[in-house]
């Protein structure tokens, strides 16, 4: 199975956000791979290997990202996990929106013809959650979002995709080629079944570590560099950010002397009584 996986870099979600004017100041950001994309890389690797003998691969995993040259670091970490090759489309972060990203991915898909596009359900920076859906629409492909499990069926022609919904797990059957976006439970030990790995095989929980051998091997794996104009993607932003503001700072609480005063405040100030 040929799989295209997206890999967006995002600022470390644990870092304090700073503003410069009314835009985010990312000059001191620690960049890292969007965690949901990392889960998608892990799921893609599980789909293309025999878990008991990971070296015997069937299929190939390509990781794609849009961004400046630094993105190479995140792509290299996906290659070190085991992906086969990478594509970087040159772009500045502020020149991208979900429409441009989806259209760029569409071009890559039409060029490389993967059987499956695996993506994180959203990027944990702006939590947009729409590139996967847009891409499926542009391609006219079936889509399954928020996957918590994937099972290859019909001799590799379709997937059964589990999605956690309010009152249980919904199973969707999508024929390939398709777009699937993954949620965090896709990295559970038995969430991905490719029909080749023994049915009772259990992976360690979570995305795999890049081993030193993987890191060494990644040095020699190709990262193809492309441009938006070379792919014929219009660079006019359709989603415009009008401003950013930090959440208001928390006010200090008030100390209350008596139950009587508490009831009074709940009535007059909090207005919950």
């Amino acid at each position, binding site marked *: 199975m040929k799989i295209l996986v997206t890999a967006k870099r995002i600022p470390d979600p*644990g870092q304090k956000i700073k503003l410069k004017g009314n835009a985010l100041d990312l000059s001191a950001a*620690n960049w890292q791979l969007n965690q949901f994309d990392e889960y998608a890389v892990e799921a893609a690797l599980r789909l293309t290997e025999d878990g008991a003998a990971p070296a015997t691969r069937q299929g190939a995993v390509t990781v794609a990202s849009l961004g400046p040259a630094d993105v190479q*670091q995140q792509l290299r970490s996906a290659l070190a996990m085991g992906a086969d090759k990478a594509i970087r489309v040159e772009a500045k972060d502020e020149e991208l929106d979900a429409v441009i990203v989806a259209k760029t991915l569409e071009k890559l898909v039409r060029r490389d013809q993967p059987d499956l596009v695996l993506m994180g359900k959203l990027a944990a920076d702006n939590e947009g959650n729409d590139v996967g859906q847009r891409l499926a629409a542009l391609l006219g492909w079936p889509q399954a979002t928020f996957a918590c499990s994937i099972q290859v069926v019909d001799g590799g022609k379709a997937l059964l995709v589990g999605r956690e919904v309010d009152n249980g797990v919904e199973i969707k059957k999508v024929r390939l080629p398709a777009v699937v976006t993954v949620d965090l439970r896709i990295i559970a030990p038995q969430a991905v079944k490719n029909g080749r790995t023994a049915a009772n095989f259990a992976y360690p929980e979570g995305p795999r570590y890049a*081993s*030193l051998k993987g*890191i060494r091997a990644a040095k020699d794996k190709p990262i193809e560099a492309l441009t938006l104009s070379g792919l014929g993607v219009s660079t006019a932003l359709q989603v415009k950010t009008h401003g950013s503001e930090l959440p208001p700072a928390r006010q200090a609480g008030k100390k209350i002397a008596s139950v009587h005063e508490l009831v009074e405040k709940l009535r007059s100030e909090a207005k919950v009584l």
Partner: protein
Amino acid sequence: MPFAGVDFLQLDELLTEEERLVRDTFRRFVDDEILPVIGRHFREGTFDASWPRKLGSLGALGASLTGYGCAGLGPVAYGLIMQELERGDSGVRSFASVQGALVMYPIHSFGSEEQKQRWLPKMAAGEAIGCFGLTEPDFGSNPGGMRTTARRVGDTYVLNGEKRWITNGGLSDVAVVWAKTDEDGAGQGGAKSVRGFLVERGTPGFSTRDIHGKFSLRASVTSELIFEDCVVPASAMLPGVQGLRGPLSCLNQARFGISFGAIGAAMACYDEALRYTKDRKQFSRPLAGHQLVQAKLVDMLEEISKAQLLSLHLGRLKVAGTLRPAQISMAKRNNVRMALHIARNARDLLGANGITDEYQAGRHMCNLESVFTYEGTDHIHTLVIGEDITGIPAFD
């Protein structure tokens, strides 16, 4: 919020992409696999049996060696692994240092092809564990005086003697044992007659006894090795080296890694002290808002930054092939001193909380007391550098 490193001087820019990837992998490994259990292991005095294979599957054991299933990393990447492991715990780093630098390295450098094939792949995978027997109860800083002997009898050697303070001793499948031989024309019993032997667990006459009651390195096994008419085949000898150059070259590898490791322990203590003092309020403001506290934090950061530059530079010298043992002595001496000092100050800033194992500083502080003493005591490294600059050895 997970540990994000200490990099005041933007030294990351001096690292290659590969070095950063390696560092980040082990940073995550320590967060996931070491920190959640290290407090319990330290308290109970236990080594986690799952660590060797986990480290092996990532390629951390003998990572700077090439071939035989080893990762073939450069010295800086290797050092950064040691740094991250010791950010977890000096005991875990000690395990990896001994396995890689003190056992796999001499087998790789001085062993026969058969010895390499037999041990290196299994040791790289963490399926076999090794220890290094040099120090004896009465000979630590002065290994040339060792009493352990290997007497040639036909096609065998007969080992007698005792080794002490041996990390991994009780866990080991194989021990690299240094002993004086009675042959090779180098003068019986002289330091030049020292040879290395691979002694396997279960060899009659070889036993180990673990040392208990340690204040330090409690998550690591420390043992005595006892040899009583222990007969090994002549093929158990490391053919490629004779004299103290053998063990000392191993120690140079290990000390280089320790200079990085100490930075990891210091970073953990600084990071913990910084978080704690920013969070805890005394006298109407966070502790970190007090001048005396800030001075301590700045001292820590400054020392860590200098140590980072020192070790990084030595790594580059190592690649160039110009690194001298006295320079490694300076890095080991400086970095372990600074780490111990930082651990003590971090414990201080944590107040009463610093004396419990809910926090890391006390554990690192106790561990670093061992690191200060092992692999060349602070005194010995002082004298190594002293001899280097004056030309006068002051050991005797």
